[in-house]
């Protein structure tokens, strides 16, 4: 037995000594290319996942046995035509360059149904959809009076009047809406027979409670914002001054009396641009921390301009966006776009964002790039243009974790793959009523728009409710719900303190 053990041991040892290096070389991508000039070469890989999954995959003319999501291994470097086909969906094709030792990843490629399912949701005609960022509802407007407004809960696809019948504000005309992400509250600036008013609307279930607090405001504010969960503590920006308005005790406190150029509230802390400096304070305007004290740089960046909006990304990156103007970040190289920025939207779970101008859409990813030993300079976050053929881009929505972009250009709504080049074509999805906004929420998978001509609220199903999508959406919505709960808890805790 001892002899047998030795023999088997040495056989397995030799097997290991031969197999292990070969397997490791294969793992690194080395393979034997038996072409016309046989040689050993480093291979590449393509990873493809689609929404919905289960699409057949073709590489050139060869059909791949596995369906999406799949990984095509052992590809020799070169260009390949990669195609995905799914019954009743538009085919998808790309010319892919496989690089040695690298993986080319196409994640969550959206396969658009050949016949998009369009439904009419409400029989009434509307003038516009008033989209509210990261809210569970939007407003449908038949006119400018508040009695002409409906609340539309997109998840349940139910509508209800904004105000209860007989409300004293029914005849008021809407001038401006202020809303905080994920908040069930709206602040409206309206015009009534007696002049301008500021109303606070709390939308809970089928009831809207209205509270007027015009007397707490000095004039027409440029911006009103608040932290979610603290709907009675409002902050108003008016003519370079920043006020805190306590609606419950009906008191107004001036936090900064002049030269305020923009403000926002994140994690219970106020971020303020004042006199070309950026500072952070608590909600009473005390305990000031100067985030940007370099006056020369501040002047260069903010230039004394007012009406900056502030956004905060996942990794604490701050964005300062001037309506139809510049886009600035607190990360090098600071100024990301010089002019004409129409909107900004953060990508969830990533330190990255989308922004758009009249004719282009860009992505900025702030993930730290590693400095390679042969890099002379640190790599910086640069805008990457993913679309440059627009004519009048008004709205942009992200899909599937930012792998796709849905945008409204003029009256048309288009779909774009975020990883394709700037010159690539966008797919036309639907045409909306002239000058009306559209709404897309990934959790429902639907695009809501007003039908051209009739103005009826309609929908197009972009993400079908297959198993993958529904599981993913459930996960995402649960994640959002948990995050909301945590936000509320932290707000509650800070209030207790």
């Amino acid at each position, binding site marked *: 037995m001892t002899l047998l053990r030795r023999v088997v041991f040495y056989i397995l040892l030799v097997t290991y000594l031969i197999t292990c290096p070969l397997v490791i070389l294969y793992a690194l*991508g080395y393979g034997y290319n038996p072409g016309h000039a046989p040689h050993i070469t*480093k291979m590449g890989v393509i*990873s493809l996942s689609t929404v919905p999954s289960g699409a057949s995959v073709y590489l050139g003319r060869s059909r791949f046995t596995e369906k999406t999501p799949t*990984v095509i291994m052992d590809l020799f470097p070169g260009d390949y035509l990669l195609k995905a086909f799914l019954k009743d969906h538009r085919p998808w094709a790309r010319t892919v360059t496989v690089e040695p030792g690298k993986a080319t990843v196409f994640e969550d490629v959206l396969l658009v149904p050949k016949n998009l399912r369009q439904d009419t949701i409400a029989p009434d005609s509307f003038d516009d959809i008033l989209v509210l960022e990261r809210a569970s509802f939007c407003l449908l407007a038949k006119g400018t009076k508040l009695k002409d407004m409906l609340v539309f809960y997109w998840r349940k696809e139910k509508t209800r009047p904004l105000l209860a019948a007989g409300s004293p504000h029914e005849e008021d005309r809407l001038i401006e809406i202020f809303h905080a992400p994920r908040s069930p509250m709206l602040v409206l600036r309206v015009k009534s027979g007696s002049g301008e008013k500021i109303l606070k609307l709390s939308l809970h279930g089928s009831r809207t409670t209205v509270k007027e607090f015009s007397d707490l405001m000095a004039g027409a504010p440029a911006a009103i914002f608040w932290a979610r969960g603290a709907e009675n503590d409002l902050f108003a920006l008016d003519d370079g001054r920043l006020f805190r308005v306590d609606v419950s005790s009906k008191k107004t406190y001036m936090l900064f009396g002049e030269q305020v150029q923009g403000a926002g509230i994140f994690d219970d802390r106020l971020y303020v641009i004042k006199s070309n400096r950026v500072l952070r304070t608590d909600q009473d305007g005390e305990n000031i921390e100067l985030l940007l004290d370099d006056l020369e740089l501040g002047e260069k960046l903010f230039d004394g301009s007012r009406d900056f909006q502030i956004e905060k990304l996942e990794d604490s990156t701050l964005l300062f966006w001037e309506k139809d103007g510049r886009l600035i970040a607190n990360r090098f190289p600071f100024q990301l776009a010089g002019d004409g920025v129409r909107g900004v939207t953060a990508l969830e779970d990533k330190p990255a964002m989308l922004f758009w101008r009249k004719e282009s859409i860009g992505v900025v990813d702030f993930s730290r790039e590693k400095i390679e030993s042969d890099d002379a300079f640190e790599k910086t976050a640069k805008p990457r243009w993913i679309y440059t053929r627009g004519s009048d881009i008004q709205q942009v929505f992200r899909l599937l974790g930012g792998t796709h972009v849905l945008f409204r250009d003029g009256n048309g709504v288009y779909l774009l793959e975020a990883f394709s080049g700037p010159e690539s074509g966008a797919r036309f999805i639907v045409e909306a009523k002239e000058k009306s906004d559209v709404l897309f929420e990934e959790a429902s998978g639907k695009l809501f728009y007003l039908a051209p001509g009739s103005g009826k609220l309609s929908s197009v199903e972009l993400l079908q409710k297959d198993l993958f999508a529904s599981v993913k959406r459930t996960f995402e919505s649960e994640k959002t719900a948990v995050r909301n709960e945590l936000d509320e808890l932290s707000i509650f805790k800070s209030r207790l303190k």
Partner: protein
Amino acid sequence: MNFQFSSHGLSKQDRRLQRFLEIAPGLTTWTILVGIVTLAFWQPIWAALVIIAFDLYWLLRIFYGIIFLLLAYLRLSIEQRTNWLDRARALDHPEEYLDELEKADPKDRREKISLWIHKREVRTLMRSRLFPLAFDDVHHLVLIPVVKEERNVFEPGVQMLARGPYPAKRMVVVLAVEERAGTAIKDSALAVQDKFKDAFLDFLVVFHPEGLPDEAQVKGANVTCAAKMARRRFEELRIPFEHVIVSCFDADTVVSEQYFACLSYYFRVNPHRNRASFQPIPVYHNNIWDAHGFAQVMEMGASFFLLTETTNPEKLVTFSSHSMSFKALVDIGYWPVDMISDDSSIYWKAFNHFDGDYRTIPMYVTVSMDVVDAGSWWATVVSVYKQKRRWAWGVQEFPIIIRAFLKNKSIPAWTRVRLAFRFFERHIAWATWSFLLTIMSWLPALLAEREFSSSFVYYSSSRITSVIFTLSYVILFILCVLSLCLLPKKKVRFGFLKQVGFVLQWVLLPVTYILFSALPALDAQTRLMFGNYLEFWVTGKHRGRRVPSNIARCV
């Protein structure tokens, strides 16, 4: 060579060396685990390649083990029908017996193989000219330590000895009861003595006093006390120690009917009978059908491990219940009285004492013990964990063995290096393999950042790991089948569904082995590393509501 096989009473220099060697296993294990995690963070490609190399090594190592597990199982099943008593007796006249064997006509292939091995063993004995004493002169000393086991745990073992086919009148049975055991247990020991005293040559109950100098609360101290008492009895009976084989069992050990006949045969046929331990195959069948699934899998794993080891007598170390020459035991000064893992340390103590001229002879016969069952599921989890940690505490022998090897120049250097490395490597593997396979293998992919996830290695490593794990399912299947084959066949109360449940428990193997093998080993090594020494802990074993499983299947 005389060496103090203990970690106590050392000189300053030895104490320093001992401490350094105590730290070495834990430090190595933690370095491997933390190193792989760190590598997965900082150099995921390198981590993936290291893990592939390890997975391949593991696969081949397991494959190697499985080959010899199958061979050992075949040997065990071949020897099922062997009449060991006849063979043991026949060695009184080896020359004539060998002639008889040459003329024997085996009925089937099994008998043929058994006969071939048997003839080889007798020829080896003939060549050595070291003939054994007469069969009737061989005596057995059976030590059964009792701490807090109840009568229904240790009595079946005694009953099996008394009613077995081997002449009980050539046995001295000693119930080694701890003084601290309590009146009820002491009374039950005395009651069992009273019931069976006439069946044996002698039946002693020895109460081991608590708190003797230089002793820890360990099994080794208890059985050493009992062996010293037995020595006096043998001296009174004028039986030379060379004629006595001592078997040290656990309280719950139930030996197979053939055990003592088989032991007598191996003792007699082996020319180095007084420089050897005799190792049976431990199986855990006493309460196998009542025990919790994870505990069954763990104990079955221990049986498989020892079964595999029997094919490698050069490196076989005693484990659990086993037997040895009483003369050798007296010569080396009995079991260590301050070490928890007495079963293996007695081998190392003897190996060093006899300058490497000591061996463990595998015996293809089973001894059955209880699967740990502390009643409730959770209590059993805790008991199994603590039992495995106690087993893994065998790592405390490492510093002592190394110190002994450094001093004992009579053992060839290569043998010392080989055995020390094997001991060390085995304990490191025990604490790391399950973690490396189950968790670390997927770590580079789980922690992958953009740079790694867009590399070829990210995809190829996952695929290679999957292929290796798929191949390991074949091995898992073999283990499932073997575990079924090893089970007692004459089940009284349990049917097909119970067997299906038993097989399904093997699916949980990766998790079971992390929780009840790797983690306790890591715990033991870490404790040793920080000098947080383990106190003796007695495994909970209950048989109250159950009838012991029929063990007629045991060889």
